[in-house]
């Protein structure tokens, strides 16, 4: 049996992927693993529930969107700008990490995760939330609920959610302009 192929071109972590033959029915998660060797987006449930597999799609309007790669076909991302968990930290010319993103740093400082399987999804989700708050700050009184609503779809099975929650709240409060006076 041969799989029907289609050319796919997109940008991943700032790097342009030249048109490449990808099976029409391949999910994005498999494409990231098998074609790009980017294994940070975790395969959890495989049916769009746990959100361990999410990536950021940077829209033309500058807004970020979180997408589940286990249930979204690779070809949906054609021509789009994708950011996986490997693309959050700052790197030098040789590719070595020079600084973690504020969300990543906050998760480390708060001991937010234990096994770390869900962490790429939480990094993605929290980064998208901060991007949304940059556009549309919330009142301080509504912050806790906003964080819960934005991240409750992410499933974690070992530490509970408290340290993720505290880390996200901390990094949001430390970043100017995300919370209204």
């Amino acid at each position, binding site marked *: 049996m041969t799989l029907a192929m289609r050319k796919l071109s997109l940008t991943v972590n700032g790097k342009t992927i030249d048109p490449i033959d990808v099976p*029409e*029915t391949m999910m994005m998660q498999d494409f990231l693993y098998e074609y790009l060797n980017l294994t940070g987006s975790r395969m959890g449930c495989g*049916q769009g529930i746990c959100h361990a597999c999410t990536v950021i799609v940077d829209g033309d309007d500058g807004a970020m969107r979180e997408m589940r790669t*286990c249930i979204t*076909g690779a070809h949906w991302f054609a021509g789009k700008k994708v950011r996986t968990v490997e693309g959050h930290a700052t790197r030098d010319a040789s590719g070595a990490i020079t600084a973690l993103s504020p969300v990543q740093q906050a998760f480390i400082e708060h001991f937010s995760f234990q096994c770390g399987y869900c962490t790429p999804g939480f990094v993605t989700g929290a980064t998208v939330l901060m991007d949304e708050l940059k556009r549309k700050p919330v009142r301080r009184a509504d912050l806790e609920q906003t964080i819960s609503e934005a991240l409750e779809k992410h499933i974690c099975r070992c530490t509970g959610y408290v340290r993720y929650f505290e880390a996200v709240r901390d990094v949001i409060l430390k970043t100017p302009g995300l919370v209204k006076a």
Partner: protein
Amino acid sequence: MRARKLLGVLILLIVCGAVLAGCIFAGLFEKSVVAKDIDQPLLPDQMKSLAQRGAYVAVAADCYACHTTTGGAPWAGGLPFKTPFGTIYSTNISSDPDNGIGNWSRAEFHRAVRDGVGKGGRHLYPAMPYASYRKMTPEDVDAVYAYLMSRPPMKVANPANELTFPFNIRQGLTFWNLLNLPSETQTKDAARSDVWNRGRYLVDALAHCGECHTPRNLTQGMIPSDYLKGALLEGLFAPDITKDGLTRMGFTPQLLAGFMNSGLSAQGAMTNQMYEVVHFSTQYMTKDDLDAMSAYLFGLDALPKDATPPAPPKPVPVAAEVATAARGTYVALCAACHGAEGQGIPHVVVPLATNASLRLTSARNLIHTTLNGIPARRFPGLERMQPMPAFKDVLDDRQMADLANWMRATWGGEPPNVKAEDVAEIRKGH
């Protein structure tokens, strides 16, 4: 001379009209179907023995779904109904004497349920399906009365309705009742079987199916000639559940009875208000009753032993560019859960290839669901359907229209007539 005569006739007509309207308003044309002997209160022993059967009648009549809010006190009411005339709240029907029906007499309860007139002559709004409950037997109304009176009192005040003038005048319902309330009750059709008659009683009186599935006229009364032929309700279609409509969706009498029992079938999962109907009512109904309802809806005197499922609809051709675009969308966004061939995942995701929403004349339900998603849902027997994501931020109107057209043509055999503008309207909530 002539002009004066005409004027006289006109004045006479106006006066007669006003007198007539006054008589209607005063309720002189209202006809109670509650017999005189109901004035006799039930004895404590009768109340006790009736209560148990009343629990089942109340389940079949699905009283709980409307008279209890999510997480609220049982039977304490408070569920809002948004109507074009304002918001109405369901009422406390627990045995509380101050807020509920604790000091309602047997006759007062009967008149509320069957005539739409509550204690003290206060008219009920037809959000309470008394036009259907009118056909209930006095024995069943007694049973529900006894059951509700056996429930603990809930001290929960009734929220005030928020209705605009003139709809906030309850007595005005006399006009609605004159136009829309059938004067006769249902009698047994001797030409049909007991099963058929029981099915009709369940469908028409207790389960009040027509309240949603029968289209309504300008005054919001059910149109008898369009009985159960499907109606638009809060932005979605309550499908045609006549024999033709059910067959079109792919049901056989057995499949339908099973669907009412479990909420799941190859035709999909019970959604929107029908999810609650299964949750609070039909899953608890006896097999005999569900079979009777199904037999009646299919016009049969008995549920047949087995029935051949209707042939799948013949695919309708779609323009090549629509098919290519839609297939791309389907593979990218739908196939991971609903399957490359629309087969779904057992116990997790409904199939699309046999889905009823692709076979309805209107694409509205399919589009509405794709745009807005469905939360995770538990079904009887430990079944659980995973949430359906909302795609309103992912698909534009054109992509959604192409997808709906392609799926409905390929699997539902429906003409690809959805336009991007139709999607835009549904997106706006129209």
